[in-house]
């Protein structure tokens, strides 16, 4: 069996990087799929369903990560996770708004 494992790269957009809250969202999203999903950089791939592994990646804003998925719903999984990254985990604006409120 030598099927092709779909792979894609994403960029961490939210200002504070892949911290606890986005990691939590990411794990929940990944866990809703059957496929085995890996994420990482520079060959250091970790289980996308493990929040502790995700946090130890230490992915700051701007980090480019590779996602791969293996399983019946692999393509869907990768699409959904890519969307999550592209939306900046819904916190890009909130966070910068909160920061400026504190500054003033």
């Amino acid at each position, binding site marked *: 069996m030598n099927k092709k494992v779909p792979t894609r790269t994403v960029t961490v957009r939210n200002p504070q990087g892949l911290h606890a809250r986005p990691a939590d969202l990411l794990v929940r999203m990944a866990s809703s799929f059957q496929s085995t999903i890996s994420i990482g950089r520079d060959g250091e791939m970790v*289980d996308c369903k493990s929040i502790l592994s995700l946090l130890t990646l230490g992915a700051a804003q701007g980090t480019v990560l590779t996602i791969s998925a293996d399983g019946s719903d692999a393509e869907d999984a990768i699409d959904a996770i890519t969307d999550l990254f592209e939306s900046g985990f819904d916190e890009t604006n909130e966070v910068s708004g909160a920061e400026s409120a504190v500054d003033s």
Partner: protein
Amino acid sequence: MVELQGIPVSPGVAIGPALVLDADGYRISRTLIAADKVDEEYARLLGAVDAVAKRIEANRLETAAVAGDETGDIFAAQLQMLNDPRLHGELRRRITKELHAADYAVNRVLRNYALALRRLENPMLAERAEDVTDIEKQLLQQLGAFTEQPLADLTEPVVLISHNLTPSETANLDRRYVQGFCTEVGGSGGHTAIVAKGLELPAVVGVGTFLDSVPNGTRVIVDGDRGKIIVNPDETTLASYQQRIEQSQTLSAQLAELRDLPAETADGTRIRLSANIEFPHESGSCLERGADGVGLYRTEFLYLASTEEPSEEDHYEAYSQVVNKMNGRPVIIRTLDLGADKMGHRPLAEQEYNPFLGLRSIRLSLRNLDIFRPQLRAILRAATHGDIRVMFPLITTLGELRQAKMLLTVVARDLKEEGIPHRADIPVGMMVEVPAAVVMLEKFVQEVDFLSIGTNDLAQYTLAVDRSNEYVADLYQSSDPAVLRLIQRCVEVADDWGRPLAVCGEMSSIPGRALLLLGLGVRNLSVPPLALSRIKKAIRSVSMDECRQIADRVMTLDSARDVDVFLLDRLGVLVPELIVT
């Protein structure tokens, strides 16, 4: 073998198995289970995970209700961590394959994750280590793994490794078993350091984060002379340290022979060499080492070592014990120096941003007369047993000194009216440890019987360095030329007015610096009991001319570093026996 550098605060070498305490003071020892208990142990873990998950969920709902969903999400992430499939995989593997007890497995696995997170450069992520630690503690608590007081039931020698130790925790260490200690935080002038010296316990502080990398029971060397920590030493290193312990025992034996000889320079100038103590029982070791008296009795330790607030009788008993034991030799009692890093059991001030600039020491005593009054009464009462003198710390203004003296008079009058035996005419002195007091010393000196320079605080306030802050610890040097100029001025003023001046800070217990002080004209030194023999040896090895030459040269130097290098060089020539190799 791993070598770490910290700040040496109490000399000597300790070798032994590590007892690792985290901030909450618990330890998890390496426990294995029987192979047929594996399923039971794993079920125990799952039970604990369930219970903790319920608690975290309750926390989440509660927090979200109060602070909004965003904040509640912190607990959602914790819940996610608790249910992490990798975590569970590893815990299961440790219990079923390596036969680890559940609590030990939890401790090891979660510590590793916390360590990995702390190593990240992103501070926001590094802080998540706190969440991991939080989960670890909750699981351990659920598993019933906490040893309530790991320090109370020691049965074998250990070297204590801890994030931090408070002065009172240090004071309560069981000296029969604790060989030495090492902490991640702390600075050279903190009170923990002073207590360690008082207990003659080799200690290194301010090592930085390293607890996670030292499993319990690992062999550790604490080098309190050079501030080194060596984890898992190799044979060569171990042998050389064992040799050093033997050498220092030989030196101690040689120094002990000086006991009955006076602290007198080679050309016959008599120096008063007294001891700094914190506990009454230390008066014994003062006498054994031939101290001329107690130059500084730090009374706040009476306050810190007990869980109850000391009564007038507690004060009285402690002081009487010391003065009786000292048998006619003078005992200078410093009134309570609480606050900043030495707090008692009840909060005496709200959280302060700059406690060292806050309500501490004499300021705190003058605002809390219910604490101060019993102490002053006890001092005057104990003075009937011998030569007791009282000294007020951290005097900054004349108003404070006058207020304290007034209170002493009032207390004496009360005792007289109550017909309680006491002495009202004891000598009154002040600590010179705030630059303001040095500047105004001509005024102060007329209102006291003696002066004593506290170089620790004087250096801290002159150099604007928090002495318990490891980030700026390198700036904190009593040999800084600015501090030396203040000391020089104190000597001049004290001589002009004919008042005895002592130096009782850490500075006088470092042989090179002690010789410098003699050269500057200081004739009274007070040092921890442990340092008595060494300082006496130094004094007896030099002439006053040699000391004056040291002082003349030092006063031309630009930095603490230059001063110390020069002093070490002179010490090597004048008293080579005292150079630690």
